[in-house]
């Protein structure tokens, strides 16, 4: 992480007394598979072993779910000739969690070429997961050739427009947004006026203490616009969420974990289950990154998210597939 990114993590707008050093330390732990939970303004960290202790003490009314992303079913090039195996490994990882997740969020690029067989394979493999409910948002690879018609046929039930939707679970409000449709020349991801209008109304009457989780494929913050890693009109969306005490934004698309905190909003991107991509600017393009075979699974993974009632921030843990 560059120094600039470290600085961005440290704006303490919410005045919860977390000092710079403590927060930075926790972010570093998070990279090694530990996670941090904020309890009454005090950050505590739990290693992966300690996770089961955390789960034991977690009271009823708490919530845990998993994010997976960028399965690119159908991809078969050098960066990973067997995306089925790595997807299965991701499911195994989910099934090994001490607490079965309530559901899975898939943040898009389910398929690689929007082919029916690719979607079918993912659906089949997901049947082996401990969590039976899966919520999707499309990636740009899922809406090829037919303006997303097939995606909606498969995953559009209960959604509006290009597939946006919201639902509640244990007092947490989840919003799935679609930012891969109607992309314009030279532009980034796009939410569009109709969806923004829907979002504004969707959260308007929620109390500001309602924890919000937004999930969408392309990052809703400007990770690296030169490579298209951002959303042109996400500012409008975030303005509707600014008043809430806890907002977590979960994205995919960039095939690596990245995190940023801005006031009460925590942004987090997940790794892919298919192939890694280079860090911003570190390579000729944001395409699939070939690594030695024995390193591949350390760069792929799943993200486990835990919400404990009355706690400020959700605990986000990335696990690789090793």
């Amino acid at each position, binding site marked *: 992480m560059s120094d600039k990114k470290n600085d961005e993590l440290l704006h303490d707008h919410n005045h919860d007394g977390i000092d710079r050093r403590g927060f930075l330390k926790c972010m570093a732990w998070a990279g090694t598979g530990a996670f941090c939970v904020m309890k009454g303004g005090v950050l505590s960290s739990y290693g992966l072993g300690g996770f089961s202790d955390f789960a034991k003490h977690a009271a009823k009314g708490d919530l845990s779910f998993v994010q997976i992303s960028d399965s690119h079913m159908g991809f078969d090039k050098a960066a990973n000739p067997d995306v089925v195996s790595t997807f299965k490994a991701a499911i195994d990882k989910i099934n090994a969690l001490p607490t079965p997740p309530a559901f899975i969020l898939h943040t898009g690029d389910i398929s690689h070429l929007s082919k029916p067989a690719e979607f079918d394979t993912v659906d089949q493999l997901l049947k082996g997961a401990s969590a039976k409910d899966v919520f999707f948002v499309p990636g740009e690879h899922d809406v090829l050739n037919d303006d997303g018609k097939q995606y909606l046929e498969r995953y559009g039930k209960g959604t509006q427009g290009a597939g946006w939707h919201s639902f509640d679970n244990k007092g947490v409000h989840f919003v799935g947004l679609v930012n891969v449709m109607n992309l314009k*020349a030279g532009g980034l991801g796009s939410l569009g006026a109709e969806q923004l209008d829907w979002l504004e109304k969707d959260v308007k009457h929620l109390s500001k203490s309602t924890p919000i989780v937004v999930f969408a494929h392309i990052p809703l913050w400007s990770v690296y616009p030169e490579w298209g890693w951002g959303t042109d009109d996400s500012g409008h969306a975030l303005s509707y969420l600014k008043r809430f005490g806890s907002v977590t934004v979960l994205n995919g698309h960039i095939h690596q974990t990245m995190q940023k905190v801005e006031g009460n909003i925590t942004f987090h991107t997940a790794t892919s289950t298919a192939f890694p991509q280079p860090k911003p*600017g570190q390579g000729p*393009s944001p*395409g699939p990154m070939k690594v030695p075979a024995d390193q591949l699974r350390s760069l792929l993974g799943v993200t486990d998210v835990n919400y404990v009632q009355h706690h400020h921030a959700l605990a986000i843990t990335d696990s690789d597939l090793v």
Partner: protein
Amino acid sequence: MKNRLWVLAMALVLITAGARNPSKAFAASANTQAATGTVVKIDNFSFSPAELTVPVGTTVRWTNADDIPHTIVSDDKIFKSKALDTDEQFTYTFTKPGTYGYFCGLHPKMTAKIVVQ
């Protein structure tokens, strides 16, 4: 004094050499010379040549050399390819003069143009 000037000159050469953008991706106007021919290669998330000039009636062929699919979408909705996987191709015959801007529908930062004269 001469040595210092030489060192300064070398430093300037090295600095300007290193200042080139390491990422080739999405390069919209890589060079200002009007490129001709009939083939556009997609490589490292860019169209090459970024600007291609052809006579009226030319069939232009795009080929994808990336490990990732791309699409060719005309700015003015005049032509649109389906998703091209690695080594797949798309052709379009330009029957009218004009400047045809286009981009990749999956990665819209990739932009280029065909000039038909």
